[in-house]
């Protein structure tokens, strides 16, 4: 059972990624509203930033899998 708790705690890194990406998307939406001609640039920047921020959540997921499947 401690394995289940440990894996659950490891996936808490998702909180950071969720908050960070939501803030970034909010700022991106604001800046597109302010200057619609730069929408393409802003969208590309947003996607790359989100993929990079998502990586930290994925690290937590990989650690949780490693904990579950190697005990």
């Amino acid at each position: 059972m401690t394995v289940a708790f440990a894996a659950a705690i490891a996936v808490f890194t998702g909180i950071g990624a969720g908050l960070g990406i939501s803030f970034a998307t909010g700022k991106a939406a604001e800046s597109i509203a302010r200057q619609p001609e730069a929408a393409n640039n802003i969208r590309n920047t947003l996607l790359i930033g989100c993929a990079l921020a998502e990586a930290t959540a994925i690290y937590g997921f990989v650690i949780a899998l490693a904990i579950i499947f190697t005990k």
Partner: protein
Amino acid sequence: MGNIQTTMTEGLATKIAFTIPVLGGIKVSESVLVNLILSALIIVLVLLATRNLKPDKPGRLQSMLEAMVGFINGFCKENIGRHWRHFAPWIGTITIYLTFANLCGILGLTPPTKDVSITASLAITSVFLIYGSQFRFLGAKGGFKRFAEPIPLLLPINLMEIGIRPLSLCMRLFGNVLGAFIIMELLKAVVPVIVPAAFSLYFDIFDGLIQVIVFVFLTTVFTGEAINEEE
């Protein structure tokens, strides 16, 4: 519940496809087999697409291919600078291979990037590219000096990045592909009919393409950082 657990355990283990009966049996894993299939597919497609190239009256397919090559060349020129010609073919090849590898889930093959060995080897080639080009284009002394470049205070961080960058590239690609695969397997176990096709649009296709873009973009930007001379 036991069904879901066996699904997950099967999804994470790497299966042996066949064994070459030479030198005491070399085990060939499934991801290597899928890699060979994808390589054969890419080679056949490339040979078919570049059959009658005409320099003065390009057809539609040739114009599309030229646009793609121009896009990758422009991307490398923007991020790497003067020596972009050395890197553009490799970046283009990695883009094509990763696109096929991440998206082959919709063809029914298991994606080879689900295996951590495949993504680790891709990350190691990126490391050789970045640091090899740093020493090749700046010389031995310049290469070592580049580690202390913006401020000498960053020297330990730059040295740690030699290990952290490939680890992060490998784990990002592996984690995303594995997570998408597990979610698709769970979906197919619960609702086998229409819903997996709709979700597969996001998980298999969109997520796979984003990971290709991120991997190639990061490799190119790191290489550009390592060899940029015009400050």
